[in-house]
């Protein structure tokens, strides 16, 4: 293996901003390395300069902001899994984090890395989509916030500018009438990349669905929300007929592809089944 690329390790966020402003697209930010190093090892990552942000503790941490939780971009899956605050207020994110790789990956992989890597199969992404998360992006020009659900513009395409870095993600805590669910189908429970992945956040009063967010990964070029299915379910009363209609609606609403991990037919069917399973848990 040839080790051409250089790496600089800035000592604070200000230095990162300056480096990015100067080098832009030429430089690649590296955090836990669990995605980038795979690509680098395989020779499929054409990067000559890396900016290593792993030591920047100012990008770590899970903060209770009252109604919301702010998660620093460098927070690892292990830190999410172990956080009592996340366990209580965004349980689906704990479940999602447990399905990422295995312990070796969970100890090193970060939520910020999952977001900016922009894979349609990123395990935490449907949770962020279902929770209508907000992301915080910084550069030498300042800090801006954006709806997570607007962030991806196409397959591995985002609205991030070359001089910007992801700082944090912000999620609204579950309310007392709300629950969250996470569902991943892969070849095996550990290590596998998903065939489909689903996160649901739902608020109910009795058998009536007040609000619902259904987000899916691995069935489109980016993580998506199933808006038609959500419209069908919102303000409806849960019963067997509605669950059956929801199953059919979501199967038709998505446009998955056939690839090495699964087929279009399988993905449509299993997505419908997964939603039906979640909805039955509510009745």
């Amino acid at each position: 293996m040839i080790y051409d690329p250089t790496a600089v390790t800035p000592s604070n966020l200000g230095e990162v901003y300056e480096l990015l402003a100067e080098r832009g697209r030429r430089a690649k930010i590296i955090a836990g390395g669990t995605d980038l190093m795979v690509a680098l090892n395989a020779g499929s990552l054409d990067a000559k300069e890396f900016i290593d942000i792993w030591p920047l503790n100012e990008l770590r941490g899970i903060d209770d902001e009252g109604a919301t939780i702010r998660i620093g971009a460098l927070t690892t899956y292990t830190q999410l899994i172990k956080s009592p605050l996340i366990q209580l207020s965004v349980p689906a994110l704990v479940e999602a984090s447990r399905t990422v790789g295995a312990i070796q990956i969970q100890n090193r992989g970060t939520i910020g890395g999952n977001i900016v890597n922009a894979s349609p199969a990123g395990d935490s992404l449907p949770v962020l989509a279902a929770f209508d998360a907000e992301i915080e992006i910084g550069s030498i020009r300042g800090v801006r916030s954006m709806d997570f659900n607007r962030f991806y513009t196409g397959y591995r395409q985002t609205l991030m500018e070359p001089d910007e870095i992801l700082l944090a993600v912000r999620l609204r805590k579950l309310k007392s009438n709300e629950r969250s669910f996470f569902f991943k189908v892969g070849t095996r429970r550990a290590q596998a990349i998903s065939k489909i992945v689903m996160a649901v956040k739902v608020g109910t009063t009795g058998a009536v669905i007040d609000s619902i967010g259904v987000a899916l990964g691995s069935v489109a070029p980016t993580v998506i929300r199933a808006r038609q299915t959500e419209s069908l379910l919102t303000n409806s009363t849960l019963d067997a007929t509605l669950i059956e209609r929801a199953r059919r609606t979501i199967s038709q609403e998505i446009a998955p592809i056939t690839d090495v991990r699964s087929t279009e037919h399988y993905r449509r069917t299993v997505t419908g089944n997964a939603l039906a399973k979640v909805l039955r848990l509510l009745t």
Partner: protein
Amino acid sequence: MKITFQVNGVDREIDAPPMKRLLDVLREDLRLTGAKEGCGEGECGACSVIIDGEVINSCLAPICQMQGVKLLTVEGLSRDGRLDPLQQAFLECGAAQCGICTPGMLISARYLLDANPRPTRDEIKEAIAGNLCRCTGYVKIIDAIDRAASTIA
């Protein structure tokens, strides 16, 4: 770039390109060939090592991120010529066949027992979910970790 870190209790300094993989530094620069390269993409766990108390895949860690860390590799498990109870149990249970996965299995098991000295069999399975073995079918590996835990307790 110059990296100073502690490997199995000994201070080491190496000079390596910043994006060189920790796995390659261990095997080529430090001649510690216990950690193996199975897949090079974080799937198989044969390169597992413990840094600052956390198990990671050394094939996915660039050496520039190792400044000042404390590293434990399979070579550091035995003390003063005495095998770690896990190594002893792997021998007694016949938990190794071809042996490629064994260093990673031992490291993941050590990481488990450090946090949880009396794991259930399910907890043992979870702890080695990131370590693939294509020979044993895992039963004897799980038996060995179970035995090591009861030996220590």
